[in-house]
């Protein structure tokens, strides 16, 4: 269970512009500094917001990562819905989905 390490990577990335530049140049190299499972490492490198959400990354960390990856708001919400559709319910933490897969509470 390395959700802590996964979250830490994203936390540090979100607040550190130097690390962001490194990540943009070589995401894989950055991920090797954290003790991640292959699934976690792949999700970070691919910017797979849906899977990261299902893995239990806190939404407040994930949202900033999505902004860094230039993912627009509607797309961010949809990717999380798609993640649950593909991978099943959120596995950890307090950011579980409570609305339906096709429900768009905010209209987007």
């Amino acid at each position: 269970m390395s959700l802590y390490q996964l979250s830490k990577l994203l936390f540090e990335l979100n607040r550190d512009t130097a690390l962001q530049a490194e990540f943009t140049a070589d995401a894989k190299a950055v991920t090797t500094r954290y003790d991640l499972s292959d699934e976690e490492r792949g999700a970070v490198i691919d910017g797979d917001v849906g899977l990261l959400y299902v893995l239990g990354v806190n939404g407040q960390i994930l949202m900033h990562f999505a902004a860094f990856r230039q993912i627009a708001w509607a797309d961010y919400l949809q990717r999380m819905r798609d993640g649950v559709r593909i991978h099943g319910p959120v596995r950890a933490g307090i950011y579980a989905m409570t609305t339906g897969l096709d429900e768009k509470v905010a209209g987007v």
Partner: protein
Amino acid sequence: MTLVFTGICSHGPGITGRADLAPPELRDPFFAAYRAMRDALHAARPDAVIIVAAEHFANFFMNNMPSFAIGMADGYEGPIEDPDWLRIPHRRVRGDAALSQAIIAEVQQSVDVAYAEEWKFDHGIMVPLSFLDPDNKLTVIPANINCQGPPLAPLHRAWAFGEALRRAADAVPQRIALIATGGISHWPATPDSGRINEEWDREFLRRWAAGDKAALLDYTDAGTYAEAGQGGFEIRTLIAAAAAARGPGTVHFFTPIPIFSTGCFVATAEIA
């Protein structure tokens, strides 16, 4: 000298970042209420403004997560988010390390606050500041209550934190304002984003305006999570503000605005 102003307000990155997506008939009165609070705040001529926020992993992480923290630097910067996404330009905000230290030492008499000699602001502070201090003139002392990563401080400690901040504000020679910012019910940064429990929010604001300590502390985290979402944990900041002000409050604006992912409110309390 004393506390000269207390106000509370919503934050949320959508308020600025998705302003153009909101229905103008909801958005414009909200922004107008925010601007009215800006005028009232500046009219109180504060030497420094304590902003009690519920930050979102901008500074504090599970490697060392304090229940309560106060900044102790001569300057801060933000936002940590992409400025284009948040639509708030990067700024450096003036702090006052010596004043912070005096406040922290007094707070520590009853509440065990972490101090931070550096601090990066996220939307939790930057969105309110963009409305309340568009010209970047205020001296800010950031404070934080952990509302994101459980185990969270119980609500009665948030009340104690507000009491301690009031005692500190009364003890220093400066004129101190206090702004607390947090959500009421909301499910932010999830696919549920936009869900708002209006009834729960109105009841909370009623208790807040009444300054009803017993009623404000009569929420459990399990109940809040079920009815008001993980975003509802941020009521801690608003509870601290009520404890600091002691007087009755006035809700100037409250309207759910789903595209902003939160019920939007602006309220002030009398200093008693």
